[in-house]
């Protein structure tokens, strides 16, 4: 009996507190940067595509809504196409967790409703943004040993110059 009264009292007190609802869309709520909304593909600090088409986002996706195909130019991997079917996406963020290059990121934007389901299929052109997103500094190819145009073997972070196999020196 007492607990019922306590509960009713608590509810009554809410009458005098500030509203938590907002007049969306006139008033936009604050969403933290780590909010899991619309997915984007970002670029590295040099302005190149970060996605190296490793397929880890696709395999991490529990609803299998990511599909892509690897292509390569002189050692640099990139997606020939990159497709997310947002009509299936559950915004779990596993793809972002799985991404080894910080390419795929979830953003604080959820306003993407459509009348036609087909419009929820986003291709690479729809996903790719110009900036680096939440991780401004990371560049996968600066760290990895793969040689790409403009970065030869031995020029990544913490790498020595390539071995001269013809040398007999220790």
């Amino acid at each position, binding site marked *: 009996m007492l607990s019922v009264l306590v509960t009713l009292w608590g509810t009554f007190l809410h009458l005098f507190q500030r509203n938590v609802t907002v007049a969306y869309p006139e008033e936009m709520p604050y969403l933290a940067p780590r909010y899991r909304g619309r997915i984007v593909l970002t670029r590295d600090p040099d302005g190149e595509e970060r996605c190296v088409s490793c397929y880890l986002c696709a395999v991490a996706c529990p609803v299998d809504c990511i599909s*892509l195909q690897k292509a390569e130019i002189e050692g640099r991997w990139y997606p020939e196409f990159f497709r997310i079917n947002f009509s299936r996406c559950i915004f779990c963020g596993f793809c972002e967790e799985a991404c080894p290059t910080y390419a795929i990121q979830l953003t604080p934007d959820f306003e993407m409703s459509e009348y036609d389901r087909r419009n929820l299929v986003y291709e690479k052109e729809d996903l790719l943004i110009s900036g680096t997103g939440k991780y401004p500094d990371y560049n996968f190819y600066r760290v990895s040993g793969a040689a790409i145009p403009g970065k030869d073997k031995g020029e990544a972070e*913490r790498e020595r110059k390539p071995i001269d196999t013809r040398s007999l020196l220790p």
Partner: protein
Amino acid sequence: MTNFIVDGRVLTAKAGENLLQACLGAGLDLPYFCWHPALGSVGACRQCAVRQYDGVEDTTGRLVMACMTPIAEGARFSITDPATAAFRAGIIEWLMVNHPHDCPVCEEGGECHLQDMTVMTGHAYRRYRFTKRTHRNQDLGPFIKHEMNRCIACYRCVRFYRDYAGGRDLDVFGSHDHVYFGRHDDGTLESEFSGNLVEVCPTGVFTDKPFSAHYARKWDMRGAPSICAHCGVGCNTIANERAGQLRRVVNRYSNAVNGHFLCDRGRFGYGFVNASERVRVATVRGTDGERVEVEREAAVARFAEMLRGAAMVVGIGSPRASLESNFALRTLVGAAHFYPGVGAREAALLRLVADSLASGAVHVASLREAEHADAVLLLGSDLPNAAPRAALAVRQTVRAAGAAMAASARIPAWHDLAVRNFAGETRSPLFIATPAATRLDDIAQGPLRAAPVDIARLGFAVAARIDPTAPAVADLAPELDALAAAIAQALLAAERPLVVSGVEAGEESVIRAAVNVAVALRGQGRNVGLMLNVPECNSLGLALMAEADDRSLETALAARAALVITLETDIGRCVPGARLDAALAGARLVVLDHSEGATTRRAELVLPAASFAEASGTLVNAEGRAQRFYPPIVTAGEGREAWRWLAAAGRAAGRTNFSGWDTEDNVLAEIARTVPRFAAVPDVAPPEGFRIKGLRIASEPHRFSGRTAMDAAHDIREPKPPVSADSPFSATMEGYQGKPPPALLPLLRAPGWNSNQSLHRFQAEIEGPLTGGDPGVRLLEVRDGAAPDWHTAIPEAFAPREDMWHAVMLPRVFGDEEQSARAAPIRARMTPAAIALNAADAARLGAAAGRVIACEIDGEIVLLPLEIRAELPRGVAGVSGLAAMAYALPSWIRIAAASEVAL
């Protein structure tokens, strides 16, 4: 059997196993790198360390390398001991010190043994903060990508490439931290087994270059157990598909056939499946001569109308089409009008091979048995070019003597380096007699270079030496006689002698001689094996199916039929255009094939037959083993199994013998009923209704990604997956994901073992057959009482002629086989057609190397550049690159140096 104890568990090992093998065989997780089931142990990587205790009282024990440890009865070991586990984690940490942090852009990622072992040992965070050693890569040609930074120096690549496959141009350079695995200079890897480096390398140093061009991760591809369609060996493969495209072909272990390795033709020859010249829809030639696409029903109706209207119908079967399709054509046109789609010479050779193998007079050796032979006679066959995987098996035979020596010194067989060192240059006898040099000559005893008839005479002489009742050779040259005596002595002294020849020898007498030798050895109570190679994946099946008479492509065309049906055979590739036009004048032509070619361009009706990647079927390899292949591509559009087109047309034409031809199981039952030799083909693989726990076998890995996005670009609704009427596979990841029967293995993967090293989880014992037995059924077994029937037609000795050359066909590993020759990476390795002479003959002709030579072969003038091959016998000309043409070689041809203006 030896009992031993690991962490308190009592396990049993087979005699002669090392501890690593026994642990893996018992299902324990023990990481390793340098050990490979086919390459043995060298103890280089220190990864498989375990702790060995001297007895129950010993609680300290000592570290030993499992791969280098023989097992004594009651020996006690620990894998989980914390100090030992820390040691293994330390080894991985060292190996990873220079690893380049590029797994996302590595083709090995997801099926990487190094990844698996790193996870298994628990090394997750990098502590090393200093700089990494780097290497430059090399361009290794159209098959293999090189990324040396990923190397962990396990030495598996050079051990396979040099020690196992006999390659010379890949080696290890430098020392200590600088060791470099590559070629002396950039350049194409010469060995025809270079593709195996991809599977042998535990990490991504060597990766598959054609696969990289349309790359997908292992978990993202549908797999199907397939059979290589590019020679007669019948290697088991797994074909991988994604998004309707055949992505790659990898090895599927079969203890009896290919073991762990494939040749490059089989691995990289699949490109024709994705090529633009594929026939995808049925076409009919209109009155204006243009081909127009037609619906399936209209095509069948047209076919039926042609069948009804024709007075005489001839069916040309194919050595590369399945038993089912060939049988359907035979049923449609009648056995009396069914011809094999091969030239007269090849047809006669195939008939001889089929009769010899089916006679039951001698045991037909499987590749595994061949590998364990201890004396080999190779007659007339350039095996490394014709059937590379078989040649790789023959290459291993010379180790038998050294292995026996090592065994007598109590060195275990798995102790690879010790066995090799102990054996030194000791080799089991391998006798090779061919017209031109082969890539097995380096291990052969004084290879004989002679014309085919002389090779045959040598063989007959060997048989007569072994068994005096065998027909003797008159007037044999003394040096051949001495060689024959030496060969006979070596074969008689051997425990497991092997006689090898094949259709590529070109001369019936050579095969007859080989059969005589084998029969003679069996008559002497020897455990002899006979291996007769055939050129195509179903050559033997077709030869066993055809009636025993003089059927060939030539007789088919001479039959002057009103309607000719060609099944998956490009007769326009074998027969020169003018002759084909004359033969087909007045005949209507129906072509069932998977690719456009010279024949489809002449056809009135072209029906899209599915390739090996879109159909299932049964093939009979050179061993007489019937094996089933399944399609990885399940959405092939209009293309369907050729037998389905033929049965549909037969039904539409009112034939009653096609009732019930709706599933492959029914067709196989019909084959078994009709052709007694094929009574066992329904048992080759489980029937369509086979289920495990009520489930079909899943053909996609459980991690398969992108299901709801792959097709979303053109249709947002996900299509319903097709259901196969012919196989127990489901088209998706839904279904049984556990261990299927060996004939239905779509994927090699086990928990914690994502790479192909998971194989031991599918075997009852290491290097034994897959759990449940090797797939396939041997159709030809030796029968007691099959009387030795000597071949007595011994040819005359070879005598060079003044005005003519004896032309023999020299096979090429890349380009001779029609389907693989359409694949871009194989085309990049093809050498142009040529005619070869020795230097003296070339001088007699007055021509230098590179000069264009006009050759008159079978009444045709062919222009070929001249090559000098010093080893060719005098008067013998070696023609290469014309294997497609149904020329009756060897034969005497006229050649002359053409004027250079002519070309």
